[in-house]
């Protein structure tokens, strides 16, 4: 998957989990939980769905790399 496809997939997953989040004007560097008010269950669900769709399992130790849309996209794109 190329980064554009990964990003589109993640945006779609976020729209499923937290449809109220508006990413249209986002720079992509916003902290997903702090900035958009997602809770840890939301974050967990998003990562689980990403793992289902891409087979990329993100270990707990790498959570600091996937706190923003850009971080998450890069992380998954490098591995998917």
């Amino acid at each position, binding site marked *: 998957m190329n980064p554009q496809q990964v990003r589109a997939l993640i945006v779609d997953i976020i729209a499923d989990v937290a449809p*109220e989040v508006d990413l249209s004007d986002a720079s992509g560097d916003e902290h997903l939980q702090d900035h958009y008010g*997602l*809770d*840890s269950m939301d974050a967990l669900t998003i990562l689980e769905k990403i793992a289902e769709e891409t087979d990329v399992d993100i270990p707990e130790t790498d959570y600091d790399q996937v706190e923003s849309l850009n971080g998450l996209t890069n992380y998954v794109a490098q591995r998917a």
Partner: protein
Amino acid sequence: MTYERIRKEKSPGDTGPIMPDYEALYGEFQWGDARQMLDGLPDGGLNIAFECVDRHAKSGRADHPALRWIGTGDERREYTYGELAELSDRFGAALQGLGVKKGESLFSLCGRVPPLYIAALGTLKNGSIFCPLFAAFGPEPIRQRLGGGGGKVLLTTHRIYRQKVAGLRDELPDLEHVIIVDDGDDLPEDTIGFSGLVERNGREFSMEPTESEDLALLHFTSGTTGAPKGVMHVHEAVVAHHITGKIALDFQDDDIFWCTADPGWVTGTSYGIISPLSNGLTMVVDQAEFNAERWYRILQDEEVTVWYTAPTAIRMLMKAGAELAGDYDLSRLRFIASVGEPLNPEAVVWGQEALGLPIHDNWWQSETGGIMISNYASMDIKPGSMGRPLPGVQAAVVEHTDDTVEIIEEPGEEGELALRPGWPSIFRGYLDMEERYRRCFVDGWYLTGDMARVDEDGYFFFVGRTDDLIKSAGHLIGPFEVESTLLEHEAVAQAAVIGKPHPTAGEMVKAFVELSTGFEAGRALQRELKGFARTRLGPAVAPREIEIVDEIPRTRSGKIMRRLLKARELGEPEGDISTLEGGQ
């Protein structure tokens, strides 16, 4: 699968638990003795905040660290008992300056920041009522609680005020003052900055005298139907907060204690503020949300000795793997406890394997004010059990009618968990719901609404709720509140909400909706409904899953059959459906 009993053996040289023998203390315990452990006000009376800070500040513990705060960006601040006593005095003086009186209430709606703790204590010293709300609530739960509770003062953040409260102010006629904790130069209109309030303003503070039975705390808890219930507690509750910390959490003098619960939920107030402070401990407060590495690092770096957390967090740590725990030095940790929902036996055993300590489950609720049934440092654990009643607490599994209660003596039989009233932190009422309060008491027992069984050794096991309340990540959620919000959307004709089992959160909120004519089921509408509910209720309360169905099952009298929806969801037998509308 059956789990082996975890034996407690005293290691040589160990000073041992604060309660060395459960049965001996259970036999001789008197609440009056527990009251004697506290000072009381110099001129008589009792005040929670005085027991928490002033008595330590006056008795040579003034320089002992009371609150050790870690911010989301890892910044740290430490407050001694002396400092907390002074700052809360100043906040109390500020409230007096604003004309806030004894018996009036301050609501908090902010994350875990130092002003929250200072304000809680200052409010109690002013004889006012402290009512903590969860910061992630959306505008609707906020309006219901703040409006219903007649809050006169709100303590909140700039962002929360702007996003969730400013638009509601016309609907909150009792709300006179809004205090902003993260004040800067640009305070929103009609609000007051926290730092200006507690700066030395020369105002002398004299504590408002309070008696044991004066109202102190208000905790909102969800009901199956109707508005959330405001659970009222009095200053005497501190007697239970104090002693249960010692007995159930094994608090010892120099402990460093971390309760991970947010004060917006009752655990975060009873054990995240009051109990550790009344016991003179150092309590750790982390502003950030759960993160496995961060949590292990805090346990290690802060040298936490007693840790009180929740099953959801423990299950998330289990997911992160035992190896991760092994990367940290957790040797200072002596006791781990969990509350919020039943802790599965795997998690108890995992604690022993990964953290070197078993996890002690305990049980209580907003209405009981403090821990009622617990596993103890000195008592063997049966994984999956919530433990045995605290000394001073009589618990039983019962069957009841509207006016009689019969104790079920047969071990293993299920019934409703009931407690004999008489402990100091039992609630004194539901705000403005006298009838609802009276219905909790039958034949001299308080009926908890939880189903349980007790085994031949007196260990209690949680079975389920007697009502439709949902327990998700330790939070009690009323289906009615969620259904009402969904019904506000024009596409929704009927809504029914259940708790669906979830591997991490215990249960998650799932909604079934029946559409109004002219609306088309589909992914776009599903998303719209979910976003609608999340914006109003916040992520903790809103449904995580929405299913559009043709028809929601109801009884002939029109009552939603949530039980049937749940059985269908789980693929279980549907049970008695004789009252189902259109059913056979």
